[in-house]
């Protein structure tokens, strides 16, 4: 099965919806080990994305993703702005002018985006960041695709892995971002950025399931 341009647009819309629905949760998580603004930042960014989307909804997927990245970069600020912004910019560049994606394209989209985050933020697995959601999700997705699971099933596997990754951030001591200033006091709290990453992947699943 393939993922259409309209489904990508629907994914971004669904992402905005779930992130805003979880604004309080993300901010509250950030207040424990950060500066209590992650939900506010993500909501501000995706509100802007929703304003921009109509102007590019009929363009190719690369264009849509790059516009999303640029919009996040220029509206969020903080650490998550350039990180998520880079995710969409890089994935957009990888996909280029395609208007429909194979499963392999979808994997490349997510993989290139996540690699961009790693390159930018230099976080490794276990640093208590969004990377702790992205990497397990990508491994699960890769494995599922190799087992010739369908798109939806593969993405579901990725989402479940991300959810587990979020849980796994709780016992970690932060080594990147604001939380790292807290040293040991960062242990025992769930990472807000990993949580928002899980929500974005869940939004993708919801979108694909709808069809």
């Amino acid at each position, binding site marked *: 099965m393939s993922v259409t341009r309209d489904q990508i647009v629907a994914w971004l819309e669904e992402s905005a919806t779930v992130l805003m629905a979880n604004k309080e949760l993300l901010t509250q998580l950030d207040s424990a080990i950060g*500066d*209590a*603004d992650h939900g506010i930042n993500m909501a501000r960014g995706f509100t802007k994305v929703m304003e921009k989307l109509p102007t590019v909804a009929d363009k190719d997927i690369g264009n849509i993703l790059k516009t999303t990245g640029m919009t996040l*970069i*220029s*509206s*969020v*600020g*903080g*650490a998550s*702005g*350039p*990180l998520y*912004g*880079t995710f969409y910019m890089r994935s957009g560049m990888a996909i280029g002018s395609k208007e429909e994606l194979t499963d392999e394209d979808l994997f490349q989209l997510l993989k290139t985006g996540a690699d961009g985050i790693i390159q*930018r*933020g*230099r976080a490794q697995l276990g*640093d208590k960041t969004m990377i702790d959601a992205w990497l397990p999700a990508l491994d699960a997705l890769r494995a599922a695709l190799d087992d010739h699971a369908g798109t939806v099933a593969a993405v579901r596997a990725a989402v479940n892995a991300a959810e587990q990754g979020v849980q796994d951030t709780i016992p970690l001591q*932060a*080594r*990147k*971002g*604001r939380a*790292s*200033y807290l*040293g040991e006091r960062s242990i025992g709290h769930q990472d807000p950025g990993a949580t928002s990453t899980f929500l974005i992947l869940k939004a993708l699943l919801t979108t694909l399931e709808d069809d």
Partner: protein
Amino acid sequence: MKKLINDIPDVVKEQLEGMAVAHPDALSVHFEPNYVYRADAPVAGKVAIISGGGSGHEPMHGGFVGMGMLDAACPGEVFTSPTPDQMYEAARAVDGGAGVLFIVKNYTGDVLNFETAAELAHADGIKVQNILIDDDVAVKDSLYTAGRRGVGTTVLAEKIVGAAAEAGYDLDKCADLCRKVNMYGRSMGMALTSCTVPAAGKPTFELGEDEMEIGIGIHGEPGQKRMSLTSADEITAMMTAEILDDGPYSRTVREWDRDNAEWVDKSLTDAPFKSGDQVIAFVNSMGGTPVSELYAVYRKLAEICEARGVKIVRNLIGPYITSLEMAGFSITLLKADDEILKFWDAPVNTPGLRWGA
């Protein structure tokens, strides 16, 4: 919350408007994206020095825009790093052909947004370099973390590198000097009270009548430890010791490789202060502490430095890098060689710092 403000969403915008009408000779303000820039920018052939960060630290950075210091400053929301389009647009506005140096305080958000801005500027053919300031000795371990925060040394670096650019240093020499200043400077801060972010409406943390917070950053974040309030002499002695006794500090910073258009890691280690060092001593108010109290601190600081064989050859005393109305202070010591002193003494004419002009 008791502040002289109007609607909370307008706080930063209105303060910038006030700066613009107050100092038309020194600077102008561009809105959307927001940046403060030198009235006479771009200065042809001069390296442009740009800094920025969250608002709430005034006069830094906007108040340091002008002859001999910054060409532009990019203010984010209160305590929130600015977005790359601000630094990118500012760079385009003030680049005089000799390139742009971004002076970046080491907070993940600031670092990443300035890096993105550098890439955008580079793509436009602007020569660019990013130098980090990470001088806060209150943050200990650094190897696998975001490392030390950028605090007081930022002000001194902006003055010194700004003067060097004015004197004709090229981009690489400005970057080298800025890196040196950062490696020569160390800071430590404390708070007598918390501060209130307008959007939050209540103090970021609570402090008892006889408590103080030691080792704070500049965003109202809690510090290294909480202690019961003691005398100015004891507090000054404790903080000065933290700075003077701090060992070698190693970290990996990321700088821009213009030729290969990629980020390269640089490992830097700076040496502790030692007897015989000459220093610039900077006693800074966090905003709510009056200058009179800073002089009581400076008196003790000078006494300790003398006893430790560290010679204070210049000083700066007052509110320069603040946390809104927070009461408290920070001490920054910057090892000063002839190059640093020459540019420290050079004329500067900004709303926040002025001499020789």
